């Protein structure tokens, strides 16, 4: 999306916010992406509960995306009473296999018109990662357009955006918001709906059904740049 496009979004919303408040909100938004990404890893009951993954997610979402928060609270509830094996069986069927994947967690399966991984869209995603100075960690052993990587990438962009604001580099901050919007519109938002639908249909446990709802609500309802502080809004208007 061009900067004009971004400006239009901002003008349309026409809402401003104190910059400190904004940064605080962006931190929460960034964390939500990271914690949502964590939810798509293999469930480890002890680790997830010890870290309060779902509580944290629910409380962060409550402030930035209340409609998604309801589902996170539900996830917490179901996760507590679910057996680890059952959760893993469900996780495998949805995202790993070894038989038919119920909800392929790879962007290219949805975006490239053929049922395949490592499609052209995957290469475009890699390109965006590289432009932001990132590459897939060798230890990750999964594909670049896996849902966990794409959500984590959003977390990374928000982190850079906040970092830029903190050093008063407003142009850079605006650029990171722009990249977020571009990435969401070209990739993640293009496949998150059918992906979450498949998850909801295929899930055996309420945990993954709620995760599908939570992810969808968060990504669709909470957009980068929907609210900007005066400082960014003015700078954007000058672009």
């Amino acid at each position, binding site marked *: 999306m061009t900067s004009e496009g971004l400006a239009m979004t901002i003008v349309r919303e026409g809402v401003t916010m104190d910059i400190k408040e904004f940064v*605080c909100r962006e*931190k*929460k938004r*960034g*964390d939500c992406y*990271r*914690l949502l*990404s*964590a939810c798509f*890893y*293999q469930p*480890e009951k002890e*680790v997830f509960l010890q870290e*309060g993954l779902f509580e*944290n997610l629910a409380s*962060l979402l409550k402030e930035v995306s209340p409609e998604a928060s309801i589902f996170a609270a539900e996830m917490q509830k179901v996760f507590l009473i679910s057996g680890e*094996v059952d959760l*893993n*069986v469900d*996780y*495998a069927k949805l995202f*790993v*296999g*070894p*038989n*038919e*994947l119920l909800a*392929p967690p*790879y962007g290219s*399966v949805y975006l490239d018109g*053929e*049922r*395949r*991984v*490592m499609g*052209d869209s995957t*290469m*475009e995603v*890699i*390109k965006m990662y*590289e*432009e*932001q*100075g*990132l*590459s*897939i*960690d060798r230890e*990750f*052993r*999964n*594909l670049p357009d*896996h849902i*966990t*990587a794409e959500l*984590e990438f959003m*977390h*990374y962009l928000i*982190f850079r955006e*906040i970092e830029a604001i903190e050093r008063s580099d407003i142009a850079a901050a605006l650029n990171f918001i722009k990249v977020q919007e571009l990435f969401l519109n070209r990739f993640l938002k293009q496949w998150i709906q059918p992906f979450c639908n498949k998850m909801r249909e295929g899930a055996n446990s309420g945990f993954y059904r709620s995760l599908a709802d939570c992810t969808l609500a968060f990504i669709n309802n909470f957009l980068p740049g929907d609210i900007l502080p005066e400082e960014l809004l003015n700078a954007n208007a000058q672009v």
Partner: protein
Amino acid sequence: MKIKRRDFLKAGMAASAAMALTGPSLNAFAAKPAPLAGEKVSGSTGAGKWIPSTCQGCTAWCPVEFFVQEERAVKVRGNQHSKANSGYVCPRGHMMLQQAYDPDRIKVPMKRTNPEKGRGIDPKFVPISWDEALDAVADKMMELRKANEPEKFMYMRGRYSPTSTDLLYGTLPKIFGTPNYFSHSAICAEAEKMGPGYTQGFFGYRDYDLARTKCLVIWGCDPLSSNRQVPNTISKFGDIFDHGAVIAVDPRLSASAAKASEWLPIKPGEDGALASAIAHVIMTEGMWSREFVGDFKDGKNLFKAGATVDEAAFEEKQTHGIVKWWNIELKDKTPAWAAKKTLIPADQIVRVARLMGKGGSACAVYMGPGVAMTPRGTYAAMAVYALNGILGSIETEGGVFQSSSAPTAKFPEISDKFIDELAKKSGKGKKLDGRGAKDMPAMMSGKPGSGVVTNNVANGMLKDPGAVKVFLSSWSNFSFSCTGAQRWEKAMAKVPFFVHMVTNASEMTQFADIVLPATFAPTEKFSIITNMANLHGHMSIQQPAGKTLWQVKAEETEVMWLLAEKLKARGFANLYDYYASFEDPETRKKPSNASEFAEIAAKISSHKVWNGKEKMKGDQIAGWEEFKKKGVYNSEIYAYKKNWGKMNAETKKFEGKFKTETKKFEFYSETLKKAFAEHAEKHKTTIDDILQASGYEARGELAFVPHYEAPKRWGDVKEYPFTFIDYKSRLNREGRSQNTTWYQEFKKVDVGDVSWEDVVKINPLDAKKLGLKDGDTVKLTSPSGSITAKARLWEGVRPGTIAKCYGQGHWAYGKVAAKDYHKFLPRGGNNNELMPDDYDRLSGSTARNGGFTGVKIEKI
């Protein structure tokens, strides 16, 4: 697929009261220096390069190249240096891309959490780490060693690398101590080998001088679609018509038959009758090769229908027993007799025999599994192959050849120090496949009890459910690919611990306790492949073309190394010590990890062709790096008449080179007679008793010559009126390509087939009688099972015969292959559930051709 960085789960940015940030919390990413201005970053438009590897989608094992951009393979072609395929692949080669990037592939090791096993029972697999998976496998294996019963460990291989297989198939059972290791070979086309084996002493697959043949007789196969050298046949096929004829013998209008000068739609299983009649015509009309076979001493042809000939009247050259064969088998096998059996008109038999005679020693009879993989297939294979002998087209311009080879080097010998007393003792036990029993001579290579009886392993397991406690198998799917497939499901359900190393979760994987993700060999495995075509042998590399996906590992090298480490940690170090004794032929370095082991193994296998120390008669390759870059070594061209014998001028004795008892091409097989005698002796009985027990019709001298045996048929003609024939798709990658959309979309390239469907082809006259129209869903029932398919009205099979392609009918294997995996619903039906398990017992091969199954058709 677990989170490796715990801080990724913590509250993070929002929790920090201060504005200052320390750094993003990352799990999937690593920071990479940002690109400089103008520097190119990754993306699909980047420059790429061709990386050589090898296709193993059929038995041609074509040297290929992948065009790789940004570590992703995007295009396929034949290796430009390859003499086997002249730089082209067949259609199935292209499908490697969809197989490699199939989202349904097995990505990580998994374990079963539901102890119940069976079709329709959810295994409830969960992901685990490689460490956990191999710990579980090693523990189970060590339990057997501790209980002094290592023979209860079984390994079965499906598709394999012809060199790396020695590291698993050839090593693990020996060092661990089990006789129970079996190859898939006998469900492929092994019975074919009995033709050249018991006539010419060559138990192998043949090559053909297609560029120079004047008459190509394609018999029981469709080399434009499958069978060992598809790209070579496609490229040379059209030119054959410029200098001769193509004859196709096939009950089905195959791609080759559709183009052939003559199509002989033989009644299934009657190939021996046609071969005997053609031989009869060639001999009565004097068209045999004087140079190869010899002649009557007075030059007068005494081969007259019905007349016995005096053996002394004929002087043979490179052959043995031509007159005996005539007297025992051929003299009464007239075209009129054969016409009744084969339903091929007598005048066409004569016409074809004359065409073949005209081609003479430049007439190649290209025999395929359709002739041989039948319950009495050995004799049909001998009868069809012997036609090459009469025509003298053995190793001649335009003729038939033994296989060329490339000079692989062996891995270090498995010396006694790696085989402990327990392994020695247990390794010599009786094999579970029943080979060598009185009724299962399995006399491959002239040795009774030496041939594998793959499909009989399931019967062995069912008979003795305690015989296999730990079962390891790679690149296999026996509960789909073996006839009588239902038996395998029953047998597998009883195996206490099954480990499956495959690329996709197939029907057999449903019974696995541990699933290990195998590399997709052509794009991810390091190995050396050897084969031959177009009169050249070749050695071809397999190497990663693009990034290896997920957590897959090469089953014959990397996984074996890791397993050896695990066994060593449990006090059994022999396997590890053997592997660790390997040395890089260039640097003398020993392997220290799994990937080094894989590369060193590949270097050992191939080093003769690139080390510069051995004088190669074929391509000259400067070193390992150049070999990896070129990807193929082509041997010198096969020398004509290489194995023809010569008269020794001094001794006045004929010195033959064929590996038969007489060193000659045997029309009367002394080699078979000897093998029979050995087997009969072992069982203290007569050869006739062996023949009876094994289900052959021949008795007495007939058993030693190529001859006609009536086809065996399961199912009464009244109840099961249709004769079922199975064939292979030009898109089948050994039954592994059905989960690709290209397979389904292009299925119509098989003559008479329909995209996205599984059709049974029925002659319109039969369809009319049954009230069927095109597209009706029908139930096919044989004595062993029922499947459903769509009816396809097609003139390419004669009335009474129905044809259906092998490959569809998966209820597992992925979203595309199965109609609904989660409901265990197949797309179409698996032919192997219709065909019962039966064998050509002389070779141990599974019957899957020759119309041995009767079927009834019902509209549903």
